């Protein structure tokens, strides 16, 4: 197991050192390495390695046939067809292990996105709090209860056609606060993060909407009896700077985890 343990050990050490930097970039790098490794290992265990190896070899053979018999157009075209069929067979073989790999990774990434997807509201910067209600009536008597660190910087804007009310707010001190919205005799809260750290951010709080909540909310559901459908805050998107170019962490993760995966698959001798 020396072959297996060495890269894992090396990756763990690298992850630890990078995590010490505690910057979003370091986290993405560490996460990419770890996920790349885990996915390769998981893919290796859950796939029919022999069949995948054969499918890939046959694809390569048909590619070589195109080259070897390039003066014989029927052979070239036949090989091209076999490449397409071989690709389908390969994707079919990769499907099951991909399922094992993708689902936990999606769930993990959703959680990571809470931290890296958006930045908190900068201190003293205005932001919008938007509330959707189930009925226009609820819209009319909606009121806002703010902690002392959060102030309203403009009167509420009512958009009756969309059952929507929008407040412009600003935070005067770093921290995590609750703003309360009362409507139709019921009061609900929404978390607001102000500052520059890496807090867990929830851009929206939903009533119902199970799938949306899974993928875009970090807060408990609003009560079913509440007249409020959702409460959202327009947190700024977080861009990670790398080589002078800013990008969403997910794209960086995608690229880095691919590179890590390709390296680990070679080291571990796993067919992907």
């Amino acid at each position: 197991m020396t072959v297996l343990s060495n890269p894992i050990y090396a990756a763990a050490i690298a992850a630890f050192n990078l995590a010490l930097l505690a910057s979003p970039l370091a986290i993405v790098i560490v996460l990419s390495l770890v996920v790349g490794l885990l996915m390769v290992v998981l893919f290796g265990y859950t796939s029919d390695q022999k069949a995948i190896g054969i499918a890939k070899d046959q694809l390569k053979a048909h590619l070589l046939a195109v080259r070897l018999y390039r003066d014989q157009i029927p052979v070239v075209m036949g090989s091209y067809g076999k490449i397409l069929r071989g690709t389908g067979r390969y994707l079919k073989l990769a499907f099951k292990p991909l399922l094992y790999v993708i689902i936990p990774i999606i769930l993990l990434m959703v959680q990571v996105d809470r931290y890296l997807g958006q930045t908190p509201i900068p201190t003293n910067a205005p932001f919008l709090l938007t509330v959707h209600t189930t009925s226009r009536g609820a819209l009319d008597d909606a009121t806002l209860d703010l902690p002392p660190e959060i102030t309203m910087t403009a009167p509420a804007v009512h958009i009756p056609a969309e059952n929507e009310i929008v407040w412009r707010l600003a935070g005067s001190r770093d921290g995590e606060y609750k703003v309360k919205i009362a409507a139709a005799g019921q009061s609900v809260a929404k978390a607001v993060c102000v500052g520059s750290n890496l807090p867990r951010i929830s851009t929206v709080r939903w009533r119902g909407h199970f799938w949306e909540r899974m993928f875009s909310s970090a807060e408990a559901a609003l009560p079913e009896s509440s007249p409020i459908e959702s409460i959202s805050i327009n947190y700024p998107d977080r861009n990670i700077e790398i080589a002078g170019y800013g990008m969403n962490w997910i794209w960086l993760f995608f690229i880095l985890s691919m590179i890590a995966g390709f390296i680990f698959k070679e080291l571990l001798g796993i067919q992907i």
Partner: protein
Amino acid sequence: MNRLCRADIESRDGRRRPSLHLGLFLLLVVVLFPKLSHAYAGPGAGFAVLSSFWAIFVAFLYSFYALMTWPFRQLFRFIRRRNAYGKATFERAVILGFDGMDPDLADRFMSEGRLPNLVKLREKGTFSKLRTTFPPISPVAWSTFMTGVNPGKHNIYDFLARDTSNYLPFLSSAEIKGPKRHIKIGKYSIPFGKTEIKGMRKGTPFWHWLGNAGIFSSVIRVPVTFPPEKFQGVLLSGMCVPDLKGSQGTFCLCTTRASNDKFREGGVRVPIERKNGVCRSYIPGPENPLLEKAGELRVDFEIRPEPGSKSARIVVGSEKFTLKVGEYSEWVPAEFKAGMGFTAHGICRFYLKELSPEVEVYVTPVNIDPGHPDLPISHPVTYSIYLAKLYGPYATLGLAEDTWALNEHVLDDDAFLAQAYGNHEDRERMLFDALDKTKQGLCTCVFDTTDRVQHMFWRYLEEDHPAARDVPHSQHPPVIQELYERMDRLVGRVMEKIDDDTLLLVISDHGFKSFARCMNVNAWLHQNGYLALKDGKTESGDWFEDVDWSRTRAYTMGLNGLYLNIKGREKQGIVDPAEADALKDELQKKLNGLVDPASGTVGITGVFIADNVYRGPYTDNSPDLIVGYGAGYRASWDSVMGKVTGQVFEDNIKAWSGDHCIDPRLVPGVLFSSHKFIEDKPAIVDVAPTILKLFGLALPAHFDGKAWTLAAKVQ
């Protein structure tokens, strides 16, 4: 035989129903949350998409390139060669070489109704004996087949040739030399430059002439095509390709049995160390090319017997597999690491012989890995890789069927046959792929199985062969009969693939006869005063170890060659060149018709003076005389290796019980064809001119063969 059939893959896919539900779930996720999902798919999906996309993309580029340039290439070819097939009688020629198929046996089995497809060929086209070469040995005969000339023009007279400076043998077909320059770093001596592989066979294979005319050829496993030469087509080298050790095949018997015995030839014994229930051994590989004091490279492996079952887990590097006793592994990669990043890539198969009370594992010779060839074994180099990717690893060694292991009782009959037919199936797959890919041009493939199986199982064809006297005749398995039936079925399958615009030839390079008695011509030469031993010696070790050359006038080595010790040619020659002809005549007269005193049978039916049978620029390298043994006889195992024994004649008790290295007139090959030829006495030397003529090409003037006349082509 637990080889994974690639066709199984699709059927196995069909059983993966549980993943359907997960798949639907994922599909739902993707549909509902496309933005998140595509981004979160991460490396797994990324790999799959990238890999498959890359394959399609590259294929598209190739196809696009091929399609766009095809008209220009065709135009260029047309201008240069003027319509390659314009004068061709056939669109395609398919030549199946069944090494050693015997016309008498074929005739017998056909008359017994066992070979229906060959009967069809005989009735529709031609069945004839095919005259072979002097001597009738595969590398000689196949060299003549491909070049259309006698050995005096292609320079191959035997498997071995002799070095006149020291009377030692060397491989006649190819010479491999390491790089000349080395850079010394510490204990390492890094080779600088390329390994030089020099083909010793001269002459031009007829597929080169076809290629020059724009006719494509697929050539598979024709002997003496190593090193592969450039031409328009694809070629996989056959007989004479070495193993990774550079030998013509060295098997390995790993065993816990203590023994100091060495195998006579072809194998090594390696100890197995047993400790705490785990057995450890190694596969010996090539010499380390990086060390000045060369040491043997090795690949270690473990055998872990599984309690309560007759099977063991074998671990070789990262490869792990389970074998039952009496079972072969698939081809297993064996990487010999020399250090500093240098690795020799080989493949081998394991055969678990015994687990209790002793542990024994047979390992095939380490073949050059066709998917990662360290030496060129095909043209283009990618052809061997293509075949390896398409069908998996396959035997690349020239003499891939391990006859030595059966001779030495390391393998039994069944294990040998399993190995031989395993290789044969690989060749069949290659042939049918070549047939699919070569709709126009030449497609030729040589099958060695016919030769090897007849060599090793002829003993069962006879009632009283010395090598099968312990087996009652009624229990002799019909191995050779089954072999011919198998080859007939192959012919049938090929016939289904071809139409009347294809010429099918089934040929063999020689026939077969019994090898029941051995003759040591060196012993005869010694007893008759032509060969002298050092004082006090009555016999000599291998390679003339105890021969006194200062008193020796003639000697023999190899299978049929007899050499004079000529002054000025051999290092210690004593025969005056002016007296050589007289000595040749004298030896011819004395040896011709030599009778085996034990049976009263003639042991030598013809001795041929080389000057009379060879002509061409390389006759200086030929033996002086060719010894043609009678049916049932052959050069003894000792005589072949330059050993002088006390006895001239002795029984052959080895499994290698049939042979063809005898009087060529006794072992013609076969010729079957799908179209009738008018030819009284066709010869193997005629095949090349016949094919060129049928493709409408002019025959080179130096050809020795003549083109056969086609009776009529059925439209």
